[in-house]
């Protein structure tokens, strides 16, 4: 807490492949303490694999990943990071409070079961059998099992999937109550409307790469204009890009460069005579569709997954 530049998460050059399929290309990602980060991307973008690597459930094929300066498994063991995974199950035949107490007993700096149940809005269901919970209630139990750890970093993999609108908004209220104390929160989601209210930073993934990284405002600003996107094998200087005609904003993530431009024709003309060895250039027309679509729509064209 005292170190200003303390990193909650530091991933350098991590990657993972399943057999022949690359799930995550080598990528870098650092999260500062207290960041609230939305991890956005279509199915198959690599979000869950990246989350698995943060927890040490999936090993990285390369690079290093530290959580609070520890290896992922150490961080899990010490309760520094806790996760709410998708669709995990519960030990059949036990009650809600009993399962949360298992969490309380397992984590070193745990909060009390009573407190975790209160935060997850499960107090009334404490004596319910875990096999008799509705989808939304199960999700709250997964949440309780994560926060009982009193973690500095909490990771949520699509926490509101399969919840109805009311349950979703309830969930985020609960989440905000919990996160308001300098904790780092990372959540993966498909729902763009959740991002604005709950994340100060958005990391967009697509096909195993980070294709954009910025505040919701920065990303939205990019959404109302044309975007020009290309890949480059050599480093690209943001200054040079900003100097191109029409360019309003520059997002660089790995070898992926996305320019938002008020005049995409002029931008592309300038790019084509510039010396940069770019490839796979794409121009997306202005659209009301979100930046999210713009950043990830090559998926549909390539027909991948």
């Amino acid at each position, binding site marked *: 807490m005292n170190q200003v530049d303390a990193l909650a998460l530091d991933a350098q050059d991590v990657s993972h492949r399943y057999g022949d399929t690359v799930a995550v290309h080598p990528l870098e990602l650092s999260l500062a303490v207290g960041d609230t980060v939305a991890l956005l991307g279509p199915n198959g973008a690599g979000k869950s694999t990246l989350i698995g690597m943060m927890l040490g459930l999936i090993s990285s094929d390369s690079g290093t990943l530290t959580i609070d300066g520890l290896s992922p498994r150490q961080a899990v063991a010490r309760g520094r990071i806790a996760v709410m995974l998708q669709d995990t199950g519960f*030990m059949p035949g036990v009650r809600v409070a009993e399962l949360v107490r298992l969490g309380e007993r397992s984590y070193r700096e745990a909060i009390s079961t009573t407190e975790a149940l209160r935060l997850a809005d499960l107090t009334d269901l404490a004596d319910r059998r875990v096999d008799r919970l509705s989808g939304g209630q199960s999700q709250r139990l997964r949440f309780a099992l994560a926060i009982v750890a009193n973690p500095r970093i909490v990771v949520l993999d699509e926490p509101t999937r399969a919840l109805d609108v009311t349950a979703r908004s309830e969930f985020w209220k609960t989440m905000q109550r919990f996160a308001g104390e300098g904790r780092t929160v990372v959540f993966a989601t498909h729902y763009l409307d959740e991002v604005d209210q709950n994340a100060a930073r958005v990391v967009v993934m697509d096909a195993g790469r980070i294709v954009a990284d910025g505040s919701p405002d920065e990303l939205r600003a990019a959404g109302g204009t044309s975007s020009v996107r290309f890949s480059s094998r050599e480093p690209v200087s943001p200054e040079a890009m900003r100097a191109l005609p029409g360019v309003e904003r520059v997002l660089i993530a790995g070898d992926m460069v996305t320019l938002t431009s008020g005049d995409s024709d002029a931008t592309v003309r300038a790019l084509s005579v510039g010396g940069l060895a770019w490839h796979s250039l794409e121009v997306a027309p202005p659209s009301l569709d979100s930046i999210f679509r713009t950043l990830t729509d090559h998926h549909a064209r390539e027909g991948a997954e």
Partner: protein
Amino acid sequence: MLYLFWLETLRMLRDPKYLALAVGAPIGFYLLFSTLFGGGRTVPGQLPGVVEIAVAMAAFGAIWSAISTTGPRLAEERQIGWIEQLRSMPIPGWQVLTAKLLASFVTALPAIVLVCLTAIVAKGASLTLGQWLSLVTLIWLGSLTFSAMGILLGLVLPAELAFPASYGLYLAGSALGGLWVPPSVMPAGMFDVAVWLPTYHLANLGWAVAGGSAPPLLSVLNLIGWTAIFAVGALTTFRRPRLRRRTKLPT
């Protein structure tokens, strides 16, 4: 881990299937068999029927208790994602298996004791207190062999298969091991099979004690041997990571 063990035990005692099959069934069978066949001595020089059958049914209950509280549960937990939930928490896999093994061990005891009590109360089976205590202890310890077997089955079998396969193996092993038909009246060919089975040797420990002898070394060695085989199988399977992960996490 203590708390995990406590939860494992608690849920078994709450499970009507456990109570019916591991505790109720052996008592029911005991009353049935001992009423039908318990009148005389099964073979000259051998045990009274009511005692011989009590030992067989105590073993029968202990075996199912041990297998059912490990195998089908573990397979189900792998499928529903509980094991994955545990993996995301600071609870190492060996603790998960140990807690399950211990809970399975503890819940095998009522199955054994209740059959013996039924034999004493309902059928007047009489042995010295020392004999009762040592045969209960031996069968109880021997049930660990079947807990190890259950854990191996639970790690290997898919959830849909785990219950029927475990139950089938249990019934076949019990029948061939002489728990239903006393080994002394078995056809020779069947007995040749029985002497290799842990089911036979588990009951044999109890029969020996009830007959006033020391527990046969061969039976002890047989059970230890099977336990070692199941344990090595389970550990090898458990260390292969692709089986620990329920399914590939979606990319």
